[in-house]
């Protein structure tokens, strides 16, 4: 049996646990261990992309228990994509944190590894209860990371974040209990079959369970009525942590995709139809609110937090059209927006450190040091974030608009998406011009040293976004296949439960 598939979970878990046990080790060694593990994850991510790229599902039966009874890890194109994205993002954040932020509190590297383990587990698992467990792992690591470094703002934001996520976990368990009570299984493939074959009398309960799950994933992904924890939490945490959190909302999006396209996607009247109906207007409203929020932010980190909200709104609105083209376009946007949000959080820290007062607040007119370099970087990053050519954002947005144009209601998306992009453009150009185009006052701030390591990391992240558009064609091909794979849940079920293949073809439409 090939054990490589469980390594993305085991490697950070073991590294994190050893770092906790060996906390007396010199700090440099801890840092190296964390970086080595994350680098290993990046290699595993590349392996996953290649393996899943063949179009076959790769399974790992924990303890060699057969599928509907034991816990199964399953790798498909979407999981591979998320694994690779997490590892790349994690590496960037960890390198940035290693320039000094990780020393501001205890156990940063252990917590970071636990966070990665939770994320990878959530992307790999094929079992709904297991998904809950990995959600909890990534959440408890994120609670501690959010508070890392201490301070009043973090305690305040942390309290909201923790409480709302605990309520979310309780709701998750309610949904799981309902599903298990109705179907007697928690394996996602088996659930899909059972849900499709459920008697009509169970339909209202199944619909209720699916809606509760939507609320739970909506809290994680930050859809409109459930997103008010996000701006404060993201802007209060330290820069590398906030950058890593850029993937946390995408976990919610991933879970929505996985659960609603697979578990509730089969049968003559799929349960997921109601979910897509709800998601569409809520996602558009989220997008609109994100645009307004970006314009009304008082600091660069808050602005970036609203960029995250815009990205969630765009993603979910595009996804809820559920055609192969929109799914693929949304996944491209997912890669772009995660990377850019992370780069912006790091950039905000880089710029904030160069100011004498006010850190990244707009109300304070302190000059920024090294304005030539940082100004150019901000200019490029802003172009990439807004979605102007030649960066990945342009390709992704153009693809989203093209894909949604085939749908009659896609026009709404056009209007809201372009307005939000315009508002973002206004907000970032206002920031850029007030920070970098202010005459005079440059002499004093030049004294602050610029951390070239940090600068290089942010440059690399912006460059990666450029590479995303340069390599657009192969990536788009991969994503188109991913979308196709997502829309054929029967193949997933056939891979997970080979013996029930005959039943599957009978039930599916």
């Amino acid at each position, binding site marked *: 049996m090939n054990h490589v598939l469980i390594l993305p979970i085991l490697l950070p878990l073991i590294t994190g646990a050893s770092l906790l046990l060996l906390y007396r080790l010199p700090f440099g060694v801890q840092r190296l261990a964390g970086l080595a593990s994350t680098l290993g994850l990046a290699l595993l991510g590349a392996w996953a992309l290649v393996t899943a790229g063949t179009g076959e599902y790769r399974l790992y039966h924990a303890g060699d228990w057969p599928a509907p009874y034991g816990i199964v890890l399953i790798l498909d194109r979407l999981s591979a994509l998320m694994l690779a994205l997490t590892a790349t993002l994690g590496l960037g954040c960890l390198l940035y944190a290693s320039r000094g932020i990780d020393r501001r509190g205890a156990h940063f590297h252990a917590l970071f590894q636990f966070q990665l383990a939770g994320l990878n587990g959530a992307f790999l698992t094929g079992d709904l209860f297991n998904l809950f467990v990995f959600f909890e792992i990534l959440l408890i690591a994120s609670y501690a990371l959010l508070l890392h470094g201490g301070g009043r703002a973090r305690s305040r934001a942390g309290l909201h974040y923790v409480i709302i996520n605990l309520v979310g976990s309780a709701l998750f368990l309610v949904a799981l*209990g309902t599903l298990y009570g109705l179907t007697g299984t928690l394996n996602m493939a088996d659930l899909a079959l059972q849900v499709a074959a459920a008697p009509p009398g169970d339909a209202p309960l199944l619909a209720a369970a699916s809606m509760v799950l939507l609320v739970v994933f909506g809290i994680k992904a930050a859809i409109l009525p459930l997103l008010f924890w996000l701006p404060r939490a993201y802007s209060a945490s330290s820069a590398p942590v906030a950058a890593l959190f850029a993937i946390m909302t995408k976990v919610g999006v991933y879970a929505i995709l996985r659960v609603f396209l697979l578990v509730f996607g089969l049968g003559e009247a799929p349960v997921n139809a109601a979910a897509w109906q709800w998601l569409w207007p809520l996602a558009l409203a989220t997008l609109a609110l994100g645009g307004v929020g970006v314009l009304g932010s008082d600091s660069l980190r808050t602005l970036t937090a609203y960029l995250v909200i815009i990205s969630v709104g765009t993603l979910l609105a595009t996804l809820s059209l559920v055609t192969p083209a929109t799914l693929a376009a949304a996944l491209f946007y997912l890669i772009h927006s995660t990377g850019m949000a992370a780069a912006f959080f790091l950039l905000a820290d880089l710029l904030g450190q160069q100011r004498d007062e006010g850190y990244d607040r707009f109300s304070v007119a302190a000059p920024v040091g090294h304005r030539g370099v940082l100004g150019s970087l901000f200019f490029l990053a802003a172009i990439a974030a807004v979605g102007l050519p030649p960066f990945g954002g342009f390709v992704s947005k153009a693809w989203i608009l093209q894909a949604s144009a085939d749908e009659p209601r896609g026009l709404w998306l056009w209007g809201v998406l372009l307005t939000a992009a315009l508002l973002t453009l206004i907000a970032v150009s206002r920031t850029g011009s007030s920070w970098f185009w202010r005459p005079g006052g440059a002499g004093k701030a030049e004294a602050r040293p610029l951390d070239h390591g940090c600068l290089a990391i942010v440059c690399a992240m912006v460059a990666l976004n450029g590479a995303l558009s340069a390599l657009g064609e192969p990536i788009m091909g991969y994503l188109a296949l991913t979308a196709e794979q997502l829309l054929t849940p029967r193949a997933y079920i056939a891979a997970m439960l080979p013996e029930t293949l005959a039943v599957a073809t009978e039930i599916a439409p």
Partner: protein
Amino acid sequence: MELLYAMTLGVLTTCGVYLLLRARTFTVILGLTLLSHAVNLYLFASGRLVAGAPAIVGLTERSADPLPQALVLTAIVIGFAMTAFVVVLALKAAVELRNDHVDGENPDEDRL
């Protein structure tokens, strides 16, 4: 038994939600605890309620479904850890912010 069970769940959930919506961290944490009790009981009941049947196949004629019990154990462990964490966090916030309001500031005190 089912009626009593359902009523317990209802009362726990109602109290939990009510306390959750209060403005002080202590009551919110109590609310979370009650809610997680309700959820654990609910999860337990998803394997159907049977009396006098062990969760081991073959000992008696009827056996209880062992999976929900395992799920509840997991949920209890996680819930316990999370409650401990949120209590510590609330204490930390209360010390740092000098009040126990969930928003970190007491609107009534600020007005004075």
